[in-house]
């Protein structure tokens, strides 16, 4: 049952071959069995899940139909869930119960999904390995000595381990696509503004975007259909119509122009490069045209990101001050002490490092050299993408430079860790949609193929990913022991 795709599960629910309660119990039992070793969850909501599943069954019983009605899912613990602990992977919010639902959560709830729990993540989504979580690292189901990637590592690992057919995530610099690649699942980061950020705890407001993990592009399309759309509570939510994402999946790719990102291939490890070459051949076989394109400023992505994201996070995280919610230090001797110790003790090392980096690049005397300079570089990178999309429909390349690495391997070298995001950050800086799909294995670990499209080209992106998945079976591979 857990190997079925969402479309297949929905079909069985519709035909009353299974009930949502049965489905929910099945996944809850898998979670009980596998999660302790994976550490994929921060909170389990089993009791509520069964209530919600029963409610979904009642809706189904009345003849109501919906592609996600009765489907269990996991929310990344960055999304506020009314009445449920929302920790953002931080000690700061270990005691925090959100009093409201994020728009993403509310939409999925209304669509009849059943929340099984909240997934583990890098603290405040700051990390590429899930090792910065206050709740400990998440393990990669393909090899528990490896990281699952981050920051949405819990959602990725749980999806890969078949603990749920669907999980939400957020992607600020690759936090959906990179863990999707490292755990062998499909991860979709929509266009900035396509999905509401309301209720998603902010890391870097101009880069954060909600998305999903699923085991196929078709499943991701069904989920995007529900979460996409204008939200008056988010000023950066874009009011453009939401197209049908499912129908165009089956379109043939004949004539699709795919650009191979030259910058992503320079110095790419040969086995990884070979997988991308294979994928290109598949696309050519499907009728697409491929050509090489160059985005000369793309190598500036990582330094640009590591100015912009920390700058915004340093300000976004100022609200965690021990006054209205969250962690407060013991016996503060005065106001300054309350602030410094609540924040010093409530935040972990990487979060503090990024807050300080951001504070530094915005401070008097450094603003122009760093923040403003990075904003200019951001335009150069964005303009590169724009010109590329004048000649091609989609861009293609690897999602990550390497497969999953050992837990602990990069924790002492932040810059080395940051370079993990080298292929994913560009899309965030330019606000573009991207998807990572499994494309093979290196050292028995899954690798991801990344597709990037122009703004609001999710349908085209998912179409290409789906057609690729029709021609390959990489996305059907399950980690050993989780089949």
């Amino acid at each position, binding site marked *: 049952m857990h190997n079925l795709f969402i479309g297949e599960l929905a079909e069985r629910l519709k035909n009353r071959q299974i009930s949502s309660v049965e489905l929910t119990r099945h996944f809850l039992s898998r979670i009980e069995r596998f999660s302790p070793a994976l550490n994929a969850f921060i909170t389990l909501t089993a009791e509520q899940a069964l209530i919600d599943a029963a409610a979904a069954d009642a809706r189904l019983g009345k003849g109501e139909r919906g592609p996600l009605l009765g489907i269990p899912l996991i929310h990344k613990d960055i999304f506020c869930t009314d009445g449920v602990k929302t920790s953002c992977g931080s000690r700061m919010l270990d005691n*925090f*119960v959100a*009093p409201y639902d994020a728009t993403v959560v509310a939409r999925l709830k209304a669509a009849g999904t059943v929340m099984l729990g909240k997934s583990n993540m890098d603290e405040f989504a700051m990390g590429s390995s899930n090792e910065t979580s206050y709740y400990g690292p998440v393990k990669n189901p393909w090899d528990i000595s490896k990281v699952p990637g981050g920051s949405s590592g819990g959602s990725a690992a749980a999806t890969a381990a078949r603990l749920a057919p669907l999980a939400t995530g957020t992607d600020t610099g690759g936090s959906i696509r990179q863990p999707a690649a490292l755990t062998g699942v499909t991860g979709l980061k929509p266009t*900035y*503004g396509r999905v509401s950020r309301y209720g998603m705890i902010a890391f870097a407001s*101009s*880069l954060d975007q909600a998305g999903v993990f699923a085991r196929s592009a078709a499943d991701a399309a069904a989920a995007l259909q529900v979460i996409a759309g204008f939200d008056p509570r988010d*000023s*950066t939510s*874009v009011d453009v119509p939401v197209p049908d994402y499912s129908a165009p999946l089956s379109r043939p790719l004949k004539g699709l122009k795919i650009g191979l990102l030259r910058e992503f291939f320079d110095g790419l490890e040969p086995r990884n490069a070979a997988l991308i070459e294979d994928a290109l051949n598949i696309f050519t076989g499907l009728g697409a045209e491929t050509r090489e394109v160059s985005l000369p400023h793309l190598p*500036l992505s*990582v*330094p*640009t990101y*590591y*100015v912009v994201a920390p700058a915004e996070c*340093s300000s976004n995280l*100022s609200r965690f001050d021990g*006054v*209205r*919610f*969250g962690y*407060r230090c013991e016996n*503060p*001797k*005065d*106001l*300054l*002490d*309350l*602030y*410094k*110790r609540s*924040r*010093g*003790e409530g935040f972990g*090392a990487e979060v*503090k*490092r990024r*807050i*300080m*980096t951001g*504070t*530094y*690049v915005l*401070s008097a005397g450094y603003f122009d050299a*760093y923040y403003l*300079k*990075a904003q*200019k570089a*951001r*335009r*150069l990178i964005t303009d590169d993408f724009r010109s590329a999309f004048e000649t091609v429909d989609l861009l293609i390349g690897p999602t990550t430079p390497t497969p999953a690495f050992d837990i602990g391997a990069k924790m002492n*070298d*932040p*810059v080395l860790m*940051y370079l993990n995001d080298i292929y994913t950050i560009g899309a*965030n*800086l330019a*606000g573009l949609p991207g998807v990572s799909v499994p494309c093979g294995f290196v050292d028995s670990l899954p690798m991801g193929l990344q597709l990037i499209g122009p703004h609001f080209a999710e349908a085209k992106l998912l179409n290409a990913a789906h057609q690729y998945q029709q021609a390959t079976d990489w996305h059907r591979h399950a980690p050993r022991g989780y089949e």
Partner: protein
Amino acid sequence: MSLTRQDVEKIAHLARLSITDQEMPVYVSSLSSIVDFVDELSRTDTAGVVPMAHPLDGQHQRLREDAVSESDHHEKYQRNAPAVTAGLYVVPRVIE
């Protein structure tokens, strides 16, 4: 560019973060390497480039109608608060 301990102390104070003596050298070195890394930007020619603050560049702010849509839920909201009295959030004395 390398940051000194004094630089990091100043930043930590601005950001209201307590940093222990043991942690301090780690931050001095890691922040220095990050700043070194992002310094790569300084080698890029950005003359005449207009800064881009947001991916929705060129779009503008939507305006909301002036209407009261929220009601009082302070008891619910204050359940998360570490210290409350008579509806007020309590902090150590604010000295003006």
